[in-house]
């Protein structure tokens, strides 16, 4: 098959969990990577080495362990900056996950500052967002009296941008959208929408949670002013996410969480704040998690994100082909693999997604069933939940075959075939 990562079997050996067998002796077929990715040994080992040999708090500590820990932590920031081609390492803020990164922006926009959102202002999102890029904006607009608007979706699962000039107007203060949908797989024309948003002076927030694992990311080319992603989906650990922002935008946001090293000076009466990125990193940061994330993006860069992307597209195309052979199966979202990400959600007529997932699980195949934190997108397509198979750089065509066979079996188990 064209486009697959060379040495795929060797790559799989990097991921200890892929050796696991599950109940009934089935080998693990992990097709839930859009939910969270598995971790290569090098990420785990790097974290262990940090905990066993270099653990200390950062920034504050002047001793040798402190210097080692700080150096490892800040080196991770450099690695992430280069992974997303950030013009400056200071523009990389470590958060706990993508959700916190998005909330950081939405939460601080409520407060006094040049970018403050208030009554009469509009925030524009889309109907295919993850809850983490919906609820923060609902909270912001409800709390400030601003208005939340959203792009709808076309029947084939694309953003409906036909009304873009009505949607993004001089009242628009923020446009926030996902780069790649975690449910439909759709890749959105982020740069194009950003262009329009910038014409009216709005800031553009990009949720790259599904993009960063799969696509080469160039934050400047993306058109984003602010961009979020999460460590655990890029073969890194949980407990860490990234908010990248243009310096001038981050500088204009008031502080989010207060305390720890986010200060310049503190008196009881008032405080002044450190510059970016520290201004947004209150308290002890996720140190060993940043170190793990650094190893993770190094691992990805070593494979080459172009190659990871090609692999993802090859596997996704193969999966779409295979799924098309299953009677009663309908894929939600675009059917052309070259225009989508690797998360494929579908319905199987006559079998509820939970039951599909359960039958697959009995064969060692891990998929996700439910609304995938995208209830509005499900509602848009008149479904309450779906089954989602999501591949990653370690996924093999044989695993897709297992999925397709498992779906056939689910149909027969529920007496549909």
């Amino acid at each position, binding site marked *: 098959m064209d486009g697959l990562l060379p040495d795929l079997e060797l790559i799989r050996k990097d991921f200890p969990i892929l050796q696991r067998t599950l109940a009934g002796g089935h080998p693990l077929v992990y097709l839930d990577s859009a939910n969270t990715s598995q971790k290569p040994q090098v990420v785990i080992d790097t974290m262990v080495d940090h905990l066993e040999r270099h653990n200390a708090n950062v920034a504050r500590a002047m001793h040798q362990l402190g210097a080692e820990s700080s150096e490892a932590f800040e080196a991770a920031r450099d690695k992430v900056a280069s992974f997303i081609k950030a013009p400056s390492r200071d523009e990389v803020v470590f958060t706990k996950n993508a959700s916190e990164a998005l909330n950081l922006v939405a939460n601080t926009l409520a407060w006094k500052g040049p970018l403050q959102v208030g009554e009469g202002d509009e925030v524009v999102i889309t109907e295919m967002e993850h809850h983490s890029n919906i609820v923060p904006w609902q909270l912001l607009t409800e709390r400030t009296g601003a208005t939340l608007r959203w792009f709808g979706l076309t029947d084939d699962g694309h953003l409906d941008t036909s009304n873009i000039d009505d949607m993004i107007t001089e009242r628009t203060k923020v446009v926030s959208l996902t780069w790649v949908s975690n449910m439909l797989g759709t890749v959105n024309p982020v740069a194009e929408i950003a262009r329009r948003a910038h014409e009216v002076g709005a800031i553009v927030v990009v949720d790259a949670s599904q993009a960063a694992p799969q696509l080469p990311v160039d934050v400047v080319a993306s058109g984003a002013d602010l961009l979020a992603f999460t460590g655990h989906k890029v073969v890194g650990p949980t407990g860490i996410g990234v908010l990248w922002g243009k310096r001038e935008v981050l500088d204009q946001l008031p502080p989010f969480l207060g305390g720890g090293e986010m200060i310049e000076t503190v008196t009881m009466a008032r405080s002044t704040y450190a510059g970016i990125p520290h201004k947004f990193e209150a308290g002890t940061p996720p140190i060993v998690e940043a170190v793990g994330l650094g190893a993770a993006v190094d691992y990805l860069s070593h494979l080459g994100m172009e190659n990871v992307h090609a692999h993802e597209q090859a596997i996704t195309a193969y999966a779409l082909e295979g799924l098309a052979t299953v009677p009663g199966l309908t894929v939600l979202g675009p059917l052309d693999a070259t225009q989508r990400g690797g998360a494929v959600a579908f319905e199987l007529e006559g079998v509820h997604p*939970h039951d599909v997932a*359960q039958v697959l699980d009995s064969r060692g195949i891990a998929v996700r069933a439910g609304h995938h934190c995208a209830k509005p997108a499900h509602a848009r397509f008149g479904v*309450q939940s779906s089954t989602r198979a999501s591949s990653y750089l370690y996924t093999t065509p044989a695993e897709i075959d297992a999925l397709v066979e498992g779906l056939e079996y689910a149909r027969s*188990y529920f007496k549909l075939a």
Partner: protein
Amino acid sequence: MDLDALYQEIILDHYKNPHHAGLRDPFEAEVHHVNPTCGDEVTLRVHVSDGVVQDVSYDALGCSISQASASVMTDLVIGKPVAEAMGIHETFLALMQGRGQVEPDEEVLEDGIAFAGVARFPARVKCALLSWMAWKDATAQAVGDDITTKETSNG
């Protein structure tokens, strides 16, 4: 994982042919419960009078386990005094939360014993409990109303 332990014939039968499905009048309380994790939903009404569960009607969206559980639940509680029905609820809850260690009591749970296997699938326990929790909530409201009504008529 042994699928047949989960999907007992009784469960699949109730799933294909749910008892007491649909929303009916009269009712004293209607609730809407959601399983936030998966999005399964149930709208459920109870009609209680004279301390007896006269009817339970529902509109459920969800998997085989949650649908079958709603069906079995209505079989078990309709026609029972509220106190007794609450007892059955307790028994079912204990079975579900028993991680497969609790021996089901067929006297009390009838078709409900088919859910014994579900208790070994932690992710599915919530599915089995969705309609039961909705029923308990609705009944508490209805009985509360009942009492209020009585007190008012007494006052």
